[in-house]
């Protein structure tokens, strides 16, 4: 690996991230669709908890979950199906022809997506906190940053893996994304502590990095509820998330290499409308 190779790929990451980073300022309609509308769902759950006189932390759990939905939607609609759409608009062949690792294109998509989605998630969080007047008692900000970063690397690693696998599905990719929206909201405990599902169901849902990431964030924001509502000890959750980071990035590399080979052999990778 030469310095030139590394520089070229870092520039490729920057280049591919750019449209997503700049997109946030070019299309401000995201404030309505990606912040205000998801807040309506959050509000519904928040009012249910309030009406039931559930512990106050539950409203905070819901707002945190609501903020994290932005990342899951970004994974499904802007990462997983992205390479398929890049193929349809003709960009994929230009990416494949460039003298770079395909992973740098995926990494660029992930970095850009992470940036724009963090903006959306933070907006949801701030507005949710302001509207429902909840108090967060953050115990360990350094740990919060570590958990957030590890969760995002694992989550976007999964998105990178989906991106290459979705090339197989073609137009059916839309259905796959639809299929993985609401069920994951349930399985990952976006609107309630995942512990409520029982150990084995929650353990199974932990393959989605956002499950453990969200649980760990809730434990950090509400340390007093850790023993009652936390699924696993935070150290264990961080360890599993770290393993998922390596696993998904490795799998995304393998699946992308496989897809490229398959596409070059069958001739379908750069054919549009398949």
């Amino acid at each position, binding site marked *: 690996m030469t310095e030139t190779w590394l520089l070229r790929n870092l520039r490729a990451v920057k*280049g591919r991230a750019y449209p997503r980073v700049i997109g946030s300022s070019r299309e401000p309609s995201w404030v309505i669709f990606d912040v205000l509308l998801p807040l309506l769902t959050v509000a519904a759950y928040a009012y249910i908890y309030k009406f039931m006189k559930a512990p106050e932390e539950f409203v905070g759990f819901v707002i945190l979950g609501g903020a994290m939905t932005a990342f899951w939607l970004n994974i499904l609609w802007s990462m997983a199906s992205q390479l398929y759409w890049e193929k349809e608009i*003709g960009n994929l062949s*230009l990416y494949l*022809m*460039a003298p770079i690792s395909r992973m740098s294109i995926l990494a660029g998509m992930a970095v850009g997506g992470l940036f724009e989605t963090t903006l959306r998630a933070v907006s949801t969080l701030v507005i949710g906190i302001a509207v429902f007047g909840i108090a967060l008692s953050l115990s360990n900000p350094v740990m919060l940053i570590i958990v957030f970063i590890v969760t995002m690397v694992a989550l976007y690693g999964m998105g990178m893996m989906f991106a290459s696998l979705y090339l197989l599905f073609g137009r059916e990719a839309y259905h796959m994304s639809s299929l993985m929206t609401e069920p994951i909201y349930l399985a990952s405990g976006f609107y309630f502590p995942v512990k409520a599902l029982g150990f084995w169901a929650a353990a199974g849902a932990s393959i989605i990095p956002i499950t453990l990431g969200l649980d760990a964030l809730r434990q950090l924001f509400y340390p007093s509820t850790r023993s009652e509502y936390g699924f696993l000890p935070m150290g264990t959750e961080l360890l599993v998330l770290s393993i998922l980071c390596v696993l998904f990035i490795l799998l995304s590399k393998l699946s992308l290499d496989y897809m490229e080979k398959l596409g070059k052999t069958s*001739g379908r990778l750069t054919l549009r409308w398949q």
Partner: protein
Amino acid sequence: MSRPMQPAVKTESLTRVFNPKKKREGKSVTALDSVDLRIERGELFGLLGPNGAGKTTLLKILSTLLLPTSGKAYVAGFDVAKDFQEVRKRINMVSGGEISGYGLLTVRENLWMFTQFYGMKSAVALKQIDELLDLFGMADKKNEKVRTLSTGQRQKMNVIRGFVTDPDILFLDEPTLGLDVNASRVIRDYIVEWVKTRPEKTVLLTTHYMAEADQLCGRVAIIDDGRILACDTPENLKKLVKTSTMLKIDVTLLDDKSPLNTIPGVEKFTYTDDPASNLTSLKFVLQDESAVSDIVSEIVHSGAKILGLRKTEPTLEDVFIKMVGKGFE
């Protein structure tokens, strides 16, 4: 490092067969059939053929997007199947009608983004982009969003994308497809200028516009049904039909053209109908000029009216008609 002693492009018995995904989707299609081609560095080489002849398949193999079924292809001396990363450092490709990039980016940002995939420093890339936009008459569009561009402006931007990374070998797949005369001229002029001022650079241009190949290319290969039928300079190719007489006749819409094919002395014959203008254009390659009177008689006999008749200089289309027995359209 490039391999300077090696030709820009070399193919040996290059064959590509597309198999249907499922049996019921039809038969296998041989897009390229034992293609042998050698393009030297510094050439502006044309690949001329009708739609579906195999031009784009060849370019996809040469640009490492597709593997050959059998045979070999080398670009700058590197095997496209094995040394694809070396090939990719040296090439770029632009296709006619492509809609690459992102509509929310400006023209300048879009071009900059693609330079990053080739590792160009931003300052160098932006300087180069500004110069090319100026040369292509697009300087006033550089801060416009890509989605606001017209087809011609968009294609000029695509062509700039191909040149801006300064590739050793540039593949242009129908770069002027569907463009108006002015946009096509700007693009053609720049292609010629680029090769002329940079003798080490090579352009492989595919087109189904005869005049484009004739005007731009030092050598032209004629391809049909995946096979190279001829490869030479446009002048030498046209000499192949020099002994024949080319005749073009415009008549009012002619329904039954079959008798024209059987007139003695007619070597090849093609036509185009334009019902909107009530016009049929007939094109003949004649072995014997005496066939002209028989052709005129046959047209008059059929009830059509002759609107124009002229002998023409041989073109690459005539070469194609003579070789394949059909026109491009």
